[in-house]
């Protein structure tokens, strides 16, 4: 079993307060916006809008193993079995909020969606707009197959420059450039600290696991641009630094170090991590948690720099870029192999993993592809996962410790 981080308790408390803020917003005279994880939330902070993340709610429901029930409710309404489970969880919680561990989400005043993480969110948010009869503010970020096209950069920047006016119209407030800049600075600061936490795992033994990172990423997703998030990551970085100083690993007798690609299997987060830890395997990093190290450069053109950063998020980039990051992470974290979670629900993340894995394998990097789903526990075959992971660890044993039995 992997050792837990003390910061987990504070993180839970923060996330609870975050969800409560959505429910309390109206009493405080504040607007609520549903936001996709890749949307520039700093603009909302500038206008004192409370951001609520349906994707994050999907993850919370996944961890609580409520995903299957909520997906089932959506399927009874006519949503297809093969649709993204976050979307279905959200729909299920709208009609059966009691099945959500946090009682569902408050009604939004408007929706703020960016298609830089996938195009599915556009359809999801269009449906939300019809359901709640609220306006949808959409940012269209062209997918980057190779080098950035100057016209694409200008197109995204143009849309970002338009956001203050749109938000003023939606909230009835005056645009606050000072608060926006402050929020951008706080986002950058939190992202730098988050990156420090992730990179600390290059130490041997690794002070934390990717499961820790998946749990601790809540604030960088939902609270970036706030002082609270910066404070949290400062404390987390301190705790991790102390572990490194003491030479303390998250896993006793660390034998192998693996990298994880894709969203986690939320409903199996700890069981899987502990299953591996019991075999001396530590998940030292994940491409998904690393995605939130992307940040706006310090620049006098605040809005343009933010636009450029959001346009180059992980899922908006081609496979060559993703492969390069995986190789870089594998090298800097000194991993012995990669687990690719072929996540049925996230097609843009998953379609192409086989090709990346094949190229890594041809360079001698052990890889395994595991089928699953981030939030719907009905799409998880526990026996098969355990058997295949055990075989993978044996393969690593044979490769790195030939002739030695554990």
């Amino acid at each position, binding site marked *: 079993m992997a050792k837990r981080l003390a910061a987990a308790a504070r993180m839970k408390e923060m996330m609870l307060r975050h969800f409560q803020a959505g429910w309390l917003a109206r009493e405080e005279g504040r607007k609520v916006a549903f936001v996709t994880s890749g949307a520039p939330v700093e603009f909302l902070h500038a206008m004192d809008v409370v951001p609520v993340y349906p994707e994050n709610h999907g993850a919370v429901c996944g961890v609580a193993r409520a995903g299957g029930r909520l997906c089932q409710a959506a399927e009874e*309404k*006519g*949503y*297809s079995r*093969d*649709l*993204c489970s976050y*979307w279905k969880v959200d729909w299920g919680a709208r009609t059966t909020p009691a099945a959500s561990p946090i009682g569902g989400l408050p009604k939004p005043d408007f929706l703020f969606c960016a*298609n830089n993480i*996938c*195009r*599915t969110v*556009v*359809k*999801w948010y*269009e*449906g939300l*707009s*019809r359901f709640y009869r609220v306006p*949808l503010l*959409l*940012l*269209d970020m*062209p*997918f980057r*197959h190779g080098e950035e*096209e100057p*016209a*694409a950069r*200008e*197109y995204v920047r*143009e*849309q970002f*420059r*338009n956001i203050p006016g749109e938000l003023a119209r939606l909230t009835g407030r005056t645009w606050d450039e000072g608060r926006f800049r402050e929020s951008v600075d706080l986002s950058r600061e939190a992202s730098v600290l988050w990156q420090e936490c992730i990179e600390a795992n290059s130490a041997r033994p690794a002070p934390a696991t990717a499961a820790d990172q998946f749990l601790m990423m809540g604030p960088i997703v939902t609270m970036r641009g706030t002082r609270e998030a910066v404070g949290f990551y400062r404390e987390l970085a301190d705790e991790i630094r102390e572990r490194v100083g003491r030479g303390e690993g998250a896993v006793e007798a660390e034998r192998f170090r693996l990298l994880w690609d894709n969203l986690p299997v939320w409903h199996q987060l700890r069981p899987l991590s502990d299953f591996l830890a019991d075999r001396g395997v530590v998940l030292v990093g994940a491409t998904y948690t690393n995605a939130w190290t992307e940040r706006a450069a310090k620049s006098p053109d605040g809005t343009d720099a933010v636009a450029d950063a959001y346009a180059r998020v992980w899922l908006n980039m*081609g*496979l*060559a870029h993703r492969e390069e990051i995986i190789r870089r992470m594998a090298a800097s974290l000194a991993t012995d192999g990669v687990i690719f979670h*072929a996540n*049925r629900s996230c*097609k*843009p993340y*998953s*379609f*192409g*993993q*086989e*090709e990346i894995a094949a190229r890594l394998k041809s360079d001698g990097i052990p890889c395994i592809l595991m089928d699953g789903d981030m939030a719907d526990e009905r799409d998880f075959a526990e026996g098969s996962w355990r058997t295949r992971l055990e075989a993978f660890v044996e393969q690593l044993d044979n490769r790195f410790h030939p002739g030695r039995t554990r």
Partner: protein
Amino acid sequence: MPSGVEWAFRFASEVSRNPAAAVSRWKSLSGRKAAGCIPIYAPEEVLHAAGMLPVTLWGNEFGPASPAGVPPFVCSVAGGIVSDIRAGKWEGIDAWVFPSTCDTFQNAFEVLFPYDERPRFPFVFPAYADAPGASEYLLDRIEAFREWAGRVSGREVSEGALEKSVRVYNENRRAFSLLEEKMAESPGAFSGTEFLTLARAGMALPKEGHTEILREALARPRGTPRYPRAKIFLSGILATGPVMEALDAAGAAIVGNDLALGNRYYSGLAHESGDPPLSLVRRHLRRAPCPTLHDSEGTRIERLFERSVGSGADRVLLLRVRQCEPESGEIPDISDESRKRGIPFLCLDIDLQAEERASAKVRIEAFVEMGE
């Protein structure tokens, strides 16, 4: 000797059955190049003006494809296209155009092209027509595409050539629109199978020839009026042969459609005067609502029912390609709207790589019987 009408159907049918052979034939006769396009937003006029043959792929041109190497969560359109290209079945294609229609097509481009060395162009277009800067961005992409097409074909795409191609494509769209009008005015004038054949033939033929075929087909003398058991408005990405055969066998007439392999591809004229690249930009940004495009007015579902009512349909059949997220997400709302309007609605799942003839037949027969 077959009449012009018979010849038109026979030829269209031959092209639909074996588009790769039609492409090879065209290439050997013309000595020019063919460009494979992923559905459905490539500005084909540019390829046409460069002297190339645009060929739109749907993933089922060679029968069920072996899904080897394609994950099960990939839709059968993209899965079929990737498998067929990898299997070397599209050898006659000289270059590729991949519009950014959906996440899966974008990734299909990524998985294919470290290994396929033919020239390719990822045509990334604005998914949101009303976004600030969308026109300027799209104009830039069309100009880049124009330059690429000129380089690949060896023939510069002049303003004059592009203007001419816009006219050729408009003629083709007008002819297709007449076909759709005739299907609405005289239900059963064309069977579902004939409609599919005519629509598909246009994906692998030069548009001039396809327009001729459509005109011949439209000249078919009106036979004894048919009184179909059901008048269907067909929605979805595409219809398959077995679905159309089942509709025909059940006595249903297709009176309207918003299929991607149908109205969504063929509708919308470009301005014939003025700057041709700008005309293409305007046409694209005024596209008929499609689940792969964001519509700030939220009119996709309303428009679907307006068109359905306008066509005289008495029910709506949506063919959902499994794993297609853009199409899937609107289905419950379409279903609710049809219930509100008292219009029978059926969503039928299809998979291009699976033989589902029997189940399609049973479900379509039951749907046609509804409300009889």
